[in-house]
């Protein structure tokens, strides 16, 4: 503070301490001797005393104008404000945070480790998924029969030309063919249809879709989207 007052000569800090009775007895005696030798310093000390007198006198005058009851009200208001602030501070500190806030607060110091863990998890996902997927370049199967499906014996009722066997896979029996539920009473949604016979039409009743074709006649093509 004293550094910002250029009109105060050196030793101003000591002067202020002397003025405030903050010097030890030896320093006080030494400073008193210095005051005797330096009139300017004494003038500063006098000005300080004058300032204090003015301030305290004014404050005392104003205080004397305020009734004592008013002081009680002021102190009550101060106590109330302080108490309110302390209560709010306690509530903020005691307010439970959400699990995500707590989790983030716990993980934030170790964000690098968390990112590394996430990267590890991503690698594990990739590896596990790769293990579940079939590899590429699988050997070709016979016609369109799935690799895992057993080849059924030719059925005598099927009059399949020998040269068509490679192109027409034999049916593979489902393990529990009788386990089908009753058909759902719904129409099919026809995306595209090509009739090869003489005639063809689509009938949709709302519960079943019937495609009518004829087994003879010239081929007839059509594309429909219903």
């Amino acid at each position: 503070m004293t550094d910002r007052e250029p009109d105060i000569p050196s030793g101003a800090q000591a002067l202020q301490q002397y003025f405030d009775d903050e010097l030890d007895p030896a320093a006080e005696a030494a400073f008193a001797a210095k005051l005797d030798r330096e009139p300017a310093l004494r003038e500063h000390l006098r000005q300080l005393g004058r300032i204090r007198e003015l301030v305290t006198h004014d404050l005392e005058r104003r205080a004397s104008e305020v009734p004592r009851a008013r002081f009680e009200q002021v102190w009550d208001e101060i106590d109330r404000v302080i108490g309110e602030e302390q209560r709010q501070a306690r509530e903020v500190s005691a307010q439970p945070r959400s699990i995500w806030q707590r989790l983030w607060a716990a993980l934030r110091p170790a964000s690098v480790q968390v990112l590394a863990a996430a990267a590890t998890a991503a690698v594990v996902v990739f590896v596990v998924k790769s293990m579940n997927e079939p590899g590429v370049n699988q050997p070709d199967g016979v016609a369109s029969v799935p690799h895992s499906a057993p080849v059924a014996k030719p059925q005598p009722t099927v009059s399949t030309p020998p040269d068509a066997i490679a192109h027409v896979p034999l049916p593979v029996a489902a393990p529990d063919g009788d386990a089908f539920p009753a058909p759902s009473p719904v129409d099919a949604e026809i995306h595209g249809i090509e009739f090869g016979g003489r005639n063809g039409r689509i009938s949709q009743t709302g519960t079943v879709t019937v495609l009518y074709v004829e087994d003879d006649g010239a081929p007839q093509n059509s594309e429909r989207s219903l």
Partner: protein
Amino acid sequence: MTHRTPHRSLVAVLAAALAPVLGVSAAIAVPSAAQAAVSKANCRLHQVLLSKEGDGNVPKELAFLRDTLKNDEFAIYKGFYLLERKTLKLDLESRVDAGFGTGHKLGLTLLGGDDAKLKLRAELTGRDGVKSLLDTTYSIQNNGQLMISAGSHTDAGRSGKLFFAIQCGSSA
């Protein structure tokens, strides 16, 4: 200072320990969501003869068709005869053919779908097993049924219309 608190170390250790667990869990969860798309289906095919002559009773082996045959579409038919039944297992994008004693061949291909609906392709040949009568792509509710009428037919002295009933359901 490079002082590391025990709390930070604990978090790092926990994160490292949980990473594989999270990864495996995600790997299990992600395919299960993706597998909502159907890759296999079971189908049953029935070849039936519907005749205008008969007592109107649906035989036991065609009981599953009873509701369908009550439809006005089939009101003119009084005789119902099962000629042949096939069951097929379909893999995605793999055509499987079924041959019938009448000479017809019915090829089915599972094109996709989900747990609720299947997309299929049906290809039916004539009695010679070669000539194409029908080639259609359709979507239908899981275990829904598509009927195909393939013209007139006579079997064991009974004359009527030949029908194919195709019912497919997704399988695991």
